[in-house]
Structure formats: C-alpha cells, structure tokens
C-alpha cells in the first residue's frame, strides 16, 4: 500500500513536471552586467551673488579700493604715493666763517718795567644768506666750529672769547674759549662739535631782536714786560668757522626755494582688464594730497600732468588747475612735529580730468614744482626740522557714475572639473540672472586646452540685462534673464580636454547709447543662479 502511495505521489509530481517542463534557457551562460544608472537629473547648483563691489573686485588687485561715497554710490579710489621731500631737499646750511682783527693800540718799546692792559670788545657777524633766509635759531645736529686766535703782541695775552650766539644745549651757557697767547706761542686753534650747541641768531650785541646775527665778545689782558716792544698796530685776531653744519631744527625764515618733482609716473594697471569698449566717468577727481610737516607754506605748480592711454595716446591736463598754483599750508610754530594735510583737487570744474580718466589711461605723468613761502600764501613764521617731510600722494576718486558701452573684459579662469564630466552624457546649464544693476552683460565662453587652443566655444549671448533707471537715479527693479546652454555628448567630450576658460564679458549700461551716465549704488546686486539638467551615466564598473 505504501509503495502504491509513493508511486501515486511521484506520479503526480512527474505528471506536473511533464506538464510544466523545465526551461532555464534565460539563465544559461548569463552573467550579471555591471549596473548602469542613467537618470536625468535636474538639480540646482548654486548661486553667484555679486554686489557692485564684488563685480569690480578684480580692480582691487591693481590697487583700487572700492567703497562708497556719502550718497552710497560706489566709489573706486586709487591711491599712490609720489616721491616724498625731506628737509635737506629744501634747506642745507652753508659753511660760515667770521674773522676779526683787533689792534691793541699800545706803543711800548722796552721800558724796563712791566705793565698790564685790559681790553673788552663785542663783535657782530651776519650769517651769509643765499636765498633770503633769515634764521632766528638753529639747533645743530652736526658739523664743527673751528676757532683760531692769533696774537701779534710781544707780551703775554690772556684772552677769553665768548660766543654768545652758540649756547650749549645742556648747560645753556654760551661757548667760551679762554687761554694765554705768548710771543713764543702766538696761535691757538680750537675746535668743537656743533651738535652740542644751539645757535641763537636772534639778538644783536645790544639785545635787540634781529636775525642771522652772531655775537662774539673778546676779553683779553696784555701783560707787558720790561723788554716788550709793542707797536700800535700790533693786536690780536680771531676767526671762527662753522664747518659742514647740520641742523636739527631751524626757526626763522627759510626764504623762497624751488623744488621740482619731475616725471612721477603713475601706473594705473586697473584698466588693463578692459581692452575694448568705452567707459566714461562723469565725476572723477584727481586729488593731490599733501602732508606737510615743514613750518612754511608751499606753492604748487602742476607743470605737466598727462594721461597716456593704452594705445600710447597722450592727453594733457588742461583747465585752470593746470595754470593756477595751489597752496599747501604748513604747521604753525606752535605745532612743531605735526603735519598739515592739504588736498588739491582736480575735477571736472577745473580740469579735463573726466576726459583723462575715461580714456582708461595706462599711465599718468606728473611733473610738479614746489616753492617755499610763495608770494600768494599768507606770511608765516618758518621752521624746518631735520625730520620734517612733505609727503605727496595722489588719490584718484572715481564715483561709479558712468556710461559703459560695450566694455569688454577678458578673464581666463581655470577649468578643473573636466574629469567630473566623464559621467555626463548631455548637459543643459541654466543661468538665471536677477540683476538690480543698470548694467547689462553678454558673455562668451571659450574653453581652451593645455596648449591654449580653443576646444569649444559658447557663443556670445545676453547673460543679464541692465535694470531700467528711474527718475531718482536708482534702478526701478531687477531684471530677470534666463539662459540655457546646451552641451551634447560630443560637446562634453570636447570639454574634457579643456583646462581653462576665457570668459569674455561685454558690458553696457542702461541706455548707454543715449550717453546716460548711471549710478551704481552700493546696495545693488547681481545674482546668477546656476542650475543643471544632466543626463548622466553611472557605472558600477567605474
């Protein structure tokens, strides 16, 4: 019975198998291929957000500061320092020599007895002035004073030479030289460092206020012996020399002196990135900034200022600023050690500066002449210290009130994602620009390989449109522009060879053709959203 049941069971199974059969052909010799995923993904990439400052940030590398003025209009400023003028450029002290010979007036011929005669003399000397300088005092920092005394008298002469005009800086006592001259030793040479003294040239021998005076007092005593033979013309003499005097500080009047600052060449590299098109600044100003710590005014003459364009054209400065001297003030005598800042502004009211700047100059030539104590400046008590300086800087201020028409910027940026493109089979890059600026931009992308050869070009197309400008000078609202750039598989394969992109941007302000100058306010922004729709292929094999 059991065998019958097994047989029945197997019969049913076999019957089923016969009916159904087995067919695994689908699996024969088959392996599982690498998994290949080929979705098409629409993804946001991100946003490039620019303020006006950001847009022109590349100029910062060329030394341009980007800020804003009191009206919140973006301001480009370029600052450079010209050659500074030190004290020695304006004043050097000349060597001075003073001499005096004094007859004693004695007529003695071996009288056989001794006698003693006393003499007191005070002398005044004038400092030699070359350019009308008149000093009240000089604090010396170098040089020497050489003193020579000589006696023709046949007797011992005790002398005391007092230089009232040279006062020791420490003791506040005048320089005093004393000694004895004998017939056998009739000369005395003395020398001392001038740095120990302050020259006070402001009083004459009577104490009256003067300038450039040196007062010397000579006291001497002649001790006549019985054998002395003295003629009436015999006397004593002295000479004093200020040799290579250097000053620390000079008070008085330094006179009228000229100093030329020639051919200062100002390199304005920040216009280099703009090769084509035009940009006109409506209200630029070229400011000369003087910081003067000399205690006297200066007259400034702009002998020549000219712009040299990138094509070599020379555009000279014209206008009243080119012919009218400017005055640079100096600190008053009570403010020694300080500086006075004076700005001489060249703008559209006194010059053709807008024309010069709008020419996008490569360089600016500056030739300036300075004159101390010019006649046009109010009279001022002078001082000059060794550490005083006339610092001359230039400040180019360019408020972004401009008309830009077809201004082309070319930038080469690295393209280092070529390796990531391998999985992309088709790509649509979407750029959505939301622009508050009164500035439109067209873009052209030239992808280049390592040999700088173009491998693929995205032709020029409008990337963002300039926003319309309202009556208050501000834009009335943002414009939105959408650009789709399509890359087919073959295009992407070309991009894989690219290592850099030439980004060519053509910029034009709103209504540029009508010569409208638009203002770029600091709160404007340009946002470019990037999105992509990519057919990709991901393979587990890779």
């Amino acid at each position: 019975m059991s065998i019958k049941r097994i047989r029945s069971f197997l019969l049913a199974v076999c019957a089923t198998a016969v009916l159904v059969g087995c067919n695994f052909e689908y699996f024969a010799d088959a392996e599982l291929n690498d998994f290949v995923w080929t979705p098409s993904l629409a993804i946001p990439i991100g946003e490039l957000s620019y303020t006006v400052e950001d847009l022109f940030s590349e100029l910062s590398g060329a030394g341009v500061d980007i800020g804003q003025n009191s009206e919140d209009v973006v301001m480009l400023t370029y600052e450079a320092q010209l050659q500074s003028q030190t004290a020695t450029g304006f004043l050097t002290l000349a060597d001075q020599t003073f001499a005096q010979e004094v007859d004693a007036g004695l007529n003695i011929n071996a009288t056989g007895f001794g006698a003693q005669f006393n003499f007191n003399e005070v002398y005044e000397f004038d400092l030699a002035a070359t350019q009308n300088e008149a000093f009240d005092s000089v604090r010396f920092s170098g040089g020497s004073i050489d003193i020579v005394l000589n006696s023709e008298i046949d007797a011992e002469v005790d002398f005391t030479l007092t230089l009232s005009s040279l006062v020791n800086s420490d003791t506040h006592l005048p320089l005093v030289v004393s000694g004895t001259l004998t017939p056998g030793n009739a000369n005395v040479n003395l020398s001392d460092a001038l740095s120990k003294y302050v020259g006070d040239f402001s009083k004459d021998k009577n104490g009256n206020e003067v300038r450039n005076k040196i007062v010397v007092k000579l006291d001497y005593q002649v001790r006549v012996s019985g054998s002395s033979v003295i003629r009436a013309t015999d006397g004593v003499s002295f000479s004093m020399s200020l040799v290579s005097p250097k000053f620390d500080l000079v008070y008085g009047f330094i006179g009228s002196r000229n100093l030329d600052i020639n051919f200062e060449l100002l390199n304005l590299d920040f216009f280099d990135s703009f090769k084509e098109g035009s940009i006109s600044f409506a209200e630029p100003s070229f400011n000369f900034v003087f910081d003067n710590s000399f205690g006297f005014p200066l007259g400034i003459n702009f002998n020549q200022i000219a712009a040299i364009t990138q094509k070599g054209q020379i555009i000279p400065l014209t206008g009243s600023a080119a012919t009218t001297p400017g005055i640079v003030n100096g600190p008053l005598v009570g403010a020694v050690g300080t500086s006075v800042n004076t700005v001489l502004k060249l703008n559209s009211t006194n010059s053709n500066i807008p024309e010069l700047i709008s020419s996008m100059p490569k360089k600016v030539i500056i030739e300036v002449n300075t004159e101390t104590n010019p006649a046009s400046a109010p009279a001022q008590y002078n001082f000059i210290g060794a550490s005083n300086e006339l610092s001359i800087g230039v400040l180019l201020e360019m408020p972004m009130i401009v008309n830009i028409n077809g201004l082309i910027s070319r930038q080469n940026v690295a393209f280092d994602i070529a390796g990531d493109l391998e999985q992309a089979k088709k790509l649509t890059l979407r750029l959505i620009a939301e622009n508050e600026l009164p500035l439109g931009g067209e873009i052209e992308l030239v992808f280049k390989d390592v040999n700088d050869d173009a491998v693929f070009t995205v032709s020029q197309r409008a990337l963002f449109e300039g926003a319309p400008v309202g009556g208050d000078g501000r834009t009335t609202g943002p414009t939105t522009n959408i650009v789709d750039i399509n890359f087919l598989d073959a295009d992407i394969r070309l991009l894989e060879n690219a290592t850099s992109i030439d980004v060519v941007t053509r910029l034009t302000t709103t209504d540029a053709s009508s010569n409208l100058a638009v203002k770029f306010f600091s709160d404007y922004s340009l946002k470019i959203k990037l999105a992509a729709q990519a057919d990709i292929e991901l393979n587990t094999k890779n």
Partner: protein
Amino acid sequence: MKAMKKLLLTTALLVFTIQFSYSQAYFSYFQLRELVPQTQSLQPAFIPKGTFTFGLPTAGFLAQSDFKLRDLISKQSGDVNFEVNFDVMLAASAEINTISTDVTANLFHVGYKTKNGGYSLFANARASIDLRYGKDLMEFLANGNSNRIGAEINLSDTRIFANTYHEIGIGHAHKFLEDRLTVGARVKVITGLFHASTAEGASGTLYTNEIDNSWRISLQNATVNTAGLDLLMNSDDYESNAASSYAMSNQNKTVAFDLGAKFKVLDWLTVEAAMNDIGTINWKEQVRNYNTADTTVTISGIQLRGLENSSDSFKDSIQNKFRSNETQKEFSTSLPMKTYLAASLFLTPRDKFTVIAFNNHVFKEIDPSFALAYNHTVNKFTFGVLGSYRGPQNEVNLGLNLATDIGPMQLYLATDNMLISNKPEQYSKMDFRFGLNLMFGYKKWSSKSDAVDLDSL
C-alpha cells in the same frame, strides 16, 4: 491502459482544481488544510487527522513582487547577460507596487488530536520583508527628476517593514455544536530579533522648481526604526557571543495570538475565518531610531563664489538643512497580521469549491487578495494545482499542492506557481513549501467510507 486512465484523471483533476487568485498568500499551502498540521499557522481551527503528529524541521519560502523576474534582471536585445534596468522596472510598475519575501522555518510541530479537537506545540523562526512603493519612486530611479520639473514626486507611498523573530507556542482547537463549529487559538511567545521599518505616516515629497531646478523637499514622520541591525553591521563593537546571546533571548518579547473558526452552515457549505499574528512587539533592546524632523526645505544650491571644495560644501549645505539624529528609544510595531476568510461549497464530501480572501495587514491597509479554488481531497491524500491571476502584469500562475501519507510519514509540498521551473523569468511570484511529518493514529479517526484506494482512482 489503467495507468493511462489514472494519468488522464490526474490531469483532469489538476486542470479542474485550478485556483484563480490575486494573491500574496500561501494559498496552495492553505489548501492542504487538515492533512498537514503546520497549516494551523494559517488557520488555527484546522485539526490534524492523526492522533499524534510530529513535524520535522522544514521551511517555506515566498518571494513576490509586482514585476516579473525578467523585469528585475532584464536583458537587452541580443545580449545574453542580465542587467538591472530601472527603465524596464518602471515599465512594469503599477501606481502602487509591493515586494514581499517571507521565510518561515518550522523548527518543530507536535500535534495531538482528541475526540473534540486537538492540541499543538510548535516553534517557528520567521522572517519577512515587505516593501511598498509608488510609481513615482521607480520613475525617479529610472529617469531622475527631469521628467517632473515643475511637478511633485511623491514618495509617500514608500514603506518598508522587515521583521525577524522566533516564536514558540501552543494551540488548541475545539469542536462545538455537534462538530459544526470549530474554534482554534494559538498562543505564542515571540522574541523579536531584527527589525527595520518606516514610521507610521512617514511621507516625503520632492518638488522640482521649473525655473531654477531647486528642490523643495517635505518630510513628515521621517523615522526609520531598527532593532538588532547594529549588532549585525557593527559586530566588531560587541563581544563575540553577543549575537548568539541576543538571538536566544532578549527583551524584545511579546505574546501573540492566532485565532480561527470554521462553521458548517449547511452540510454543503462551510465558512471559516482566521486572523493570525495578533500582537505587538515592544522593541527595547538593540534599538536604533534614525530620525529626521518634520520639515519642508528648499535646496537651491550653494553660494559658489569663493568655493574651494564644491562637493563637500554641497553635501554640507544639504545636511545642514535637515535636523537628523539617532536615538535609542524603544518603539512598538504590530506583527504583520494576516487574515483569511473562506467559504467552501461541497459538491461531494471530497470535492469542494472554495472562495478565499486574504489580507496582509503589514501596512495597515485593506487590500485583499482573492482565490477561487476547486479542491479534491481524499482521506490521506490530496493534490491540486493552483491557478492565479495577478492584475498588473496579467500574469497567470498555476500552483500545485500534494500531500500523502506513507506509513507514519507524511510528505507534502505546495507552491502557488508550479510553472516557475518553465521559464521562471516570466513570473513574479515564487513560493515553495515542502516538509515531512510523522503521523500516528490516523485510522482511529477515519471512517471506512473515507478510505480511498488510490488504485481505484
């Protein structure tokens, strides 16, 4: 000639016992009924026919999806090799799709039949994974989101519920009303081992902006609860015997029930109902919750200016938009309850039509499957085939169930798709139950009129 006759008859029976179904269930196994004691796991009111039954360890397996095997591992025209192609799977997808696998290992089954019912003692190890997803998910996998720019991709239909546990229990079935009513119940202690599921109400949508392709992602209840998985994935962090100790006993215990009833309404009509796996596991041990707070975020890319490492920045910017964390809070999950409803119309005591409805409540949805079966049963031997019709792919499956006693030993096998061996790539369901039982005392309960001589068939 006699053999030929039996073959033809068998064939005829096979054809006529086709069961039409749109199923996710072990329908064919269900049809083995009282002949195979382990079917009590489907209907506790089944009372085995032997006085004493001892089931040897056996296993059943079911894998089913809404796409065919050739959709899962497809072939390009002219290519002998397979590939996994989301486009092919998308073409085969319905609006809502499910993938289910179930593995049940019957470790032992002891049954004892009394005059008015029966008792059983059993232990099972069970594992199931149920994945439910909408067509949007597959379309996203196949085509990305480019086809849905300016539209929403709804991933809210996506659910996963994976459970592994073992159970040990006792069952009892009792006859009432002069054997017209049979009520059965099983009580079982369940120890949860591994689990992963999306939280109830979890939903997510992705909207792609038509202008800038920005993604607006909305998440609600975005939590994945797991238990035991850390023990598997980070086994180096644990003692060498931690996994075995955890598998033997842990705090993830509960008591669950299977309930069932049969009622003979008329002599020729029996109705029955079963509700299995009623219970809730409170997962306490080895718990990890991966949470993302309810949010709606817009991913619009990153600020590209001054960017040095774009991929990291992109990743960071996305991560920073979501507040995610990992916690170890205990959670509860209902067992994937299963319901059978059946009505059998007896043409003869041996021949009946049965209408069966089945629902898997894993995602707390009522989406029943139905089967219409004709079954021919003789005393210690039953056999049949299963024909099932499945909607989305218009797929017809033929099933088979066989059981016979050979002395004290019982052999059985059941499958809902016996055609699987003939070009299996064209089917989307595969299941198989096979086992051996030791049956004693069968004759004690069988009347002579029930005895069938197979040779006479």
